[in-house]
């Protein structure tokens, strides 16, 4: 397709009517907000699920009022059964990884700002774009439906290891229709993500406005672009994997099920499959997925940090190369999830080495951020606090990866809370800090209203300290050998550790409750916040050249011309200490 026809395809008339404007909208900005809203719903459900799990873990015999209304058999008299705990765990993980960490930093903000930041009117394929959101929505509905099936929601974890996930109801509650719905939901989600990634790639490559060379793209656009390349390959593998899993479940195939299995006294009518095949396919997606979650946040945080520091990074180019290196390496390390899985022990070394190598680009990026802070004029806002918090979390979550990358240490720490602490910090909290920073930063642009700064800071302190209180102790528990995914602690050596778990539960409840401040700020400011000027943060990228919120066609039918690289800060110009990308003015030294 030629550039002209792509330009033509993405050009569309102003939407008419409520449904076209707000529901089945082709506008990338509406779709971005829809993704954000979906992620918000998912994160709230996911958070409540984690509360229920944390409460059950430390007060296993205390009935949780109202829980029996959600599932009569899952919580008789409000007391959670072990299978219901595992179901909540599975749903928590699936919602968070797929519908929050993939959607919020990448699909939501990417959709909204990638076209604007490169000077385009919309995505390359607006109809595909609408389809990818609504396909994601269908996937979400299928997953939530699994809560209400007769033999319970799926319980084999977000990783759904075969054969537990493949053999069907004989393997226990949650392995019936619920598990099939899980597979279907992820299958549909993969389709949506593939559509979305293609769109991102085509848009970035084809729709850049005049003067917007690749090198002049803001770092967050670079991050979304690299992420969409990773995502395209990763979901392309998970898609068939889910299909095979569904076939094993409903069509009697044996891709992941070997012969001779006796489950609940029943010899299974399968033979010839390989459980390790599922693990390989899943983690071939699963490890890049970690970077799909974190790279957009790295981009967003870099963008916000530069704006707050009022100076460019020591080198944006190095950060871009680092992100590329991480994206490339992410495909060579999936086996580090499988050190003790029975995979050939020699291959463990081959997976361990590139995993350790990933530390290098990650360290370089961290040093670039820290080095750029030096001598800057750092402005403290809610957005920059979350960006700084991101760096702190990224480091804390990153160093624990150093342990798990080594097969010998993994023998001891595998499947303990150390792993849970590690990925929650680096993939969960760090990535969400990027989303929160992005929210405080872009909210004025997206809604035309300012958020309340004081509430934003209170929210930050609770979330920052709270996240450390929750996830740091997980590492200590892991060092004591505390196994993860247990619905109760009955082993003699785990019982003494319960007070630590109690501390974590209380921290989780408080930190979770503090998110209500954010929710209030988010909703209240939408209606009552002061009107936002076009460029409240004195930022240089193209989204700040237009009114807040932007008109439906972004640039009012004109094509902006870009004259500068994205981070002209700390200069002298007619606008102050920065120069907009589309300003023809030359900066004075």
């Amino acid at each position: 397709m030629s550039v002209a026809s792509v330009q033509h395809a993405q050009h569309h008339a102003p939407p008419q009517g409520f449904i076209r404007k707000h529901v089945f909208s082709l506008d990338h900005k509406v779709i971005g907000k829809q993704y954000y809203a979906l992620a918000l719903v998912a994160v709230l459900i996911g958070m409540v699920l984690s509360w229920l799990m944390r409460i059950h873990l430390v007060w296993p015999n205390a009935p949780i009022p109202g829980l029996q209304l959600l599932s009569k058999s899952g919580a008789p008299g409000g007391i959670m059964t072990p299978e219901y705990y595992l179901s909540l765990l599975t749903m928590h993980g699936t919602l968070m990884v797929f519908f929050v960490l993939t959607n919020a930093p990448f699909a939501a903000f990417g959709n909204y700002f990638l076209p604007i930041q490169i000077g385009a009117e919309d995505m390359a394929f607006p109809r595909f774009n609408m389809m990818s959101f609504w396909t994601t929505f269908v996937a979400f509905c299928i997953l939530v439906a699994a809560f209400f099936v007769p033999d319970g929601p799926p319980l084999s974890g977000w990783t759904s290891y075969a054969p537990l996930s493949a053999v069907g109801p004989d393997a226990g509650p949650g392995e019936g229709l619920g598990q099939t719905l899980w597979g279907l939901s992820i299958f549909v989600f993969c389709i949506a993500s593939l559509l979305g990634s293609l769109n991102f790639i085509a848009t970035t490559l084809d729709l850049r406005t005049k003067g917007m060379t690749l090198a002049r793209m803001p770092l967050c656009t670079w991050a979304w672009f690299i992420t969409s390349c990773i995502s395209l390959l990763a979901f392309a593998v998970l898609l068939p994997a889910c299909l095979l899993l569904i076939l094993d479940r409903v069509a009697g195939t044996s891709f992941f099920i070997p012969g001779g299995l006796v489950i609940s006294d029943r010899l299974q009518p399968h033979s010839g499959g390989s459980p390790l095949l599922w693990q390989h396919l899943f983690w071939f997606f699963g490890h890049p997925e970690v970077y799909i979650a974190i790279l957009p946040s790295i981009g967003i945080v870099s963008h916000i940090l530069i704006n707050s520091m009022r100076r460019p990074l020591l080198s944006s180019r190095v950060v871009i190369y680092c992100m590329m290196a991480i994206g490339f390496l992410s495909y060579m390390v999936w086996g580090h999830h499988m050190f003790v899985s029975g995979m050939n022990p020699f291959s463990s070394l081959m997976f361990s080495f590139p995993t350790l190598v990933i530390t290098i680009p990650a360290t370089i990026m961290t040093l670039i951020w820290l080095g750029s802070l030096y001598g800057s004029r750092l402005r403290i806002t809610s957005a920059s606090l979350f960006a700084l918090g991101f760096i702190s979390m990224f480091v804390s979550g990153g160093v624990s990866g150093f342990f798990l990358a080594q097969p010998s240490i993994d023998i001891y720490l595998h499947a303990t809370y150390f792993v849970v602490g590690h990925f929650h910090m680096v993939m969960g909290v760090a990535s969400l800090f990027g989303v929160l920073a992005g929210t405080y930063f872009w909210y004025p642009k997206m809604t035309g209203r300012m958020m309340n700064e004081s509430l934003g800071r209170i929210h930050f302190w609770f979330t920052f300290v709270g996240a450390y209180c929750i996830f740091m102790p997980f590492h200590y528990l892991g060092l004591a050998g505390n196994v993860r995914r247990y619905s109760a602690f009955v082993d003699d050596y785990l019982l003494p550790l319960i007070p630590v778990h109690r501390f974590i539960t209380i921290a989780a409840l408080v930190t979770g409750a503090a998110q209500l401040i954010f929710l209030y700020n988010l909703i209240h400011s939408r209606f009552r916040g002061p009107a936002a000027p076009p460029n409240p943060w004195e930022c240089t990228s193209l989204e700040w050249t237009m009114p807040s919120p932007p008109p439906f066609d972004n640039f009012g039918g004109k094509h902006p011309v870009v004259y500068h690289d994205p981070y002209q800060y700390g200069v002298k110009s007619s606008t102050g200490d920065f120069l907009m990308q589309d300003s023809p003015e030359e900066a004075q030294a």
Partner: protein
Amino acid sequence: MFKTRWFASLLSLVVSPGLLFGAATISGKVTYTGTPAKSKTIDMSKEPSCAKQHTTPITTEAVVTGPNNSLANVVVYISAGAPDESSAPSQAVTFTQKGCQYIPHVIALRTGQELKVVNDDQTSHNIHPMAKVNREWNKSQPPGTPPLSEKFDKEEFIPVKCNVHPWMHGYFAVLKTSHYTLSGEDGSFKLPDLPAGKYTITAWQEDYGTQTQDVTISGNETKTVDFTFKAKPY
């Protein structure tokens, strides 16, 4: 609702003396020939809270024998010829999990009769009746939760197990008739209160299968029907 139940119990008062008119009894003894497999000691070491409840080691109960080759825990029931009965007894049958054992090992109950499953232990059990004709279910019962209440609609011998404690195995014998009993420790059984008629009596043992005998009863007699199973050494 309350009214109809009250009416039903009144009705059953009128009807049940009618059944009592037939006062014939079938009694007998279940024995085996050959050498049965040795009962095996159950290793409960994984669940210390249960293991400490047993001062003497407990053994498998798939085949329970008594003196003189008698065979206990055999379900004896009228499989054909029994008068139709309209409703299941309102009293629930209780199945208890205590010391990581099923008490009793085999229960017999009517189709549609309430089954109450009680967990007396300090640990979670899962109750998994591996039904083929009825709906299969599998539920955990954490300590301290209320008894589970379930019903089975169709006749079936359902093996039941606890996956958390794989040695826990039992049977639910769900029958269409109320004329059933289990052989005692000495192998004896008794089916009382039968009106005159022609019956098929079936004896069922979980490892040795079923045996049937036809009996005709006239009037007020006590008939003896004995069953002999062939034991398997392994």
